[in-house]
């Protein structure tokens, strides 16, 4: 029991890390659900890396890293939109171009100074164990904003997850709500980079939501499962990090991916057993079509 509780009971930095990680998990569960449903993982990845030059520039010039990240995300989203429309390139090509361009720019800026080496690691992998109450407040604000966006836009987001055409013929602007969805993902990335880092926030966006999609029958339950998996991953990852002196952010994301792997395997086994059972009970049910 001490092994499971003492690290948090005896260390304030561990408690703050746990709270911060759970807030990240809940924020990522909401945004990540739509990232998974709409197939935006590559955009999420690009946004996560696209903020790097903004943060690096902010550090170089001495202004807020969050503001720099927001500028980086805005440049990334605007650039993808312009390149894909003006140059008639597919969405993933435009995203790929901006992705490598922004990442390279970020590395070029950070390479100007040797003192940036530590900062670059912090940007990419976060500093969960150094989280402050101010960071928690920012993360909580992000959770509220992301939750409000998802609630207000739940209907067009759901339609977009099925088909752009369905959203448009239902009276919702596909382009507008696609951009609203990207903004929601950008807010999640910007708010989470201080805790799990830009590289690992993608793992928290995708792995818990992907686990949720295996079992859920409704969007709300997918979000709930994603939040629970993300929170559990935070707890387990922090424990492993504490006891074995491993990187906290990476341990959390690795745990989330492992939970997905185990869940997916269990789900396949369950379905295989279900099919066998089903076939014996209803041998003629397959292939029937009645309208």
């Amino acid at each position, binding site marked *: 029991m001490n092994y499971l509780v003492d690290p948090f009971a005896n260390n304030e930095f561990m408690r703050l890390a746990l709270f911060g990680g759970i807030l990240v998990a809940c924020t990522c569960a909401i945004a990540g659900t739509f990232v998974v449903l709409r197939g935006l993982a590559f955009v999420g990845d690009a946004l996560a890396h696209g903020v790097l030059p903004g943060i690096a520039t902010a550090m170089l010039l001495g202004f807020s890293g969050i503001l720099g990240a927001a500028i980086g995300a805005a440049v990334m989203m605007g650039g993808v939109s312009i390149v894909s429309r003006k140059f008639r390139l597919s969405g993933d090509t435009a995203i790929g171009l901006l992705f490598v361009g922004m990442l390279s720019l970020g590395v070029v800026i950070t390479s100007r100074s040797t003192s940036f080496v530590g900062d670059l690691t912090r940007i990419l992998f976060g500093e969960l164990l150094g989280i402050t109450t101010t960071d928690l407040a920012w993360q909580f604000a992000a959770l509220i904003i992301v939750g409000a966006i998802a609630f207000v836009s739940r209907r067009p987001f759901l339609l977009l997850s099925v088909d752009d055409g369905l959203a448009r013929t239902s009276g919702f602007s596909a382009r507008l709500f696609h951009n609203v969805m990207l903004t929601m993902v950008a807010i999640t990335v910007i708010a989470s980079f201080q805790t799990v880092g830009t590289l690992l926030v993608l793992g928290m966006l995708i792995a818990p939501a992907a686990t949720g999609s295996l079992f859920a029958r*409704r969007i709300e339950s997918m979000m709930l499962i994603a939040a629970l998996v993300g929170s559990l991953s935070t707890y387990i990852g922090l424990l492993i990090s504490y006891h074995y002196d491993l990187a906290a952010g990476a341990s959390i994301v690795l745990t989330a991916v492992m939970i997905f792997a185990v869940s997916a395997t269990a789900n396949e086994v369950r379905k295989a057993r279900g099919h066998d059972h089903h076939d014996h009970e209803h041998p003629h049910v*397959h292939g*029937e079509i*009645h309208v």
Partner: protein
Amino acid sequence: MTSVHASSLAVGYGKRPVVDNISLDLQPGELLVLIGTNGSGKSTLLKTLAGLIEPMQGKVTLLSSAPGQLPTQVAYLPQHPVSSHTLPLCVQDVVAMGRFAHLGLFKRSTDTDRAIVLESMKRTGIDSQANDPIRDLSGGQQQRTHLAQVLARRAEVLLLDEPTAGLDLNGRKAVAELIATERSRGVTVVLATHELADAESANMVMLLAQRVVSLGAPTEALRDEYLRECFGFTQPH
């Protein structure tokens, strides 16, 4: 009020029209059947009527408004509705999406909305699977679900792109009955199909082969010379 009006309409992608010189008028309760081979322009015309593609030339209105302007009164069933295997949605949630055009962003769904969703599922015979995940259903069952979603819109104009694709004879009969019921309520239907039999009850048939081969009552539009021109064969008499 004329339900669907088109004059000298050209539809297509980019700069090249797929079909041009389309002129027609449909009144409430009428059925227009679009028949043609793959790539003949049926889906392109339906997408234009749905507001998903801009018309290239000419004029087109649905219920006196431009395409795409009346989402609560015009419903569109695409040729291959998406049923992503990643979507964690049960049948009733997919059908309920047919009410979103009426609810917009902020309205709360009411008992009336729920009753319409249930009735739509019953009409397509999918109500017994209301709580099943759509990703676990067969192609025919998914088609019934999407058809129920279109019915739940309670629209005045239905644009249906091959709604019987993948259905057996009973399924096709049931869809024909649904269309007849909708027409009796005054709903105008534009139906794209490969089945000549679907044209029997139509007010108007348009035979397409990247141009309008014929347009008129079924007996006129499906004459042997037009069918031969369109498909290379005629109907057995």
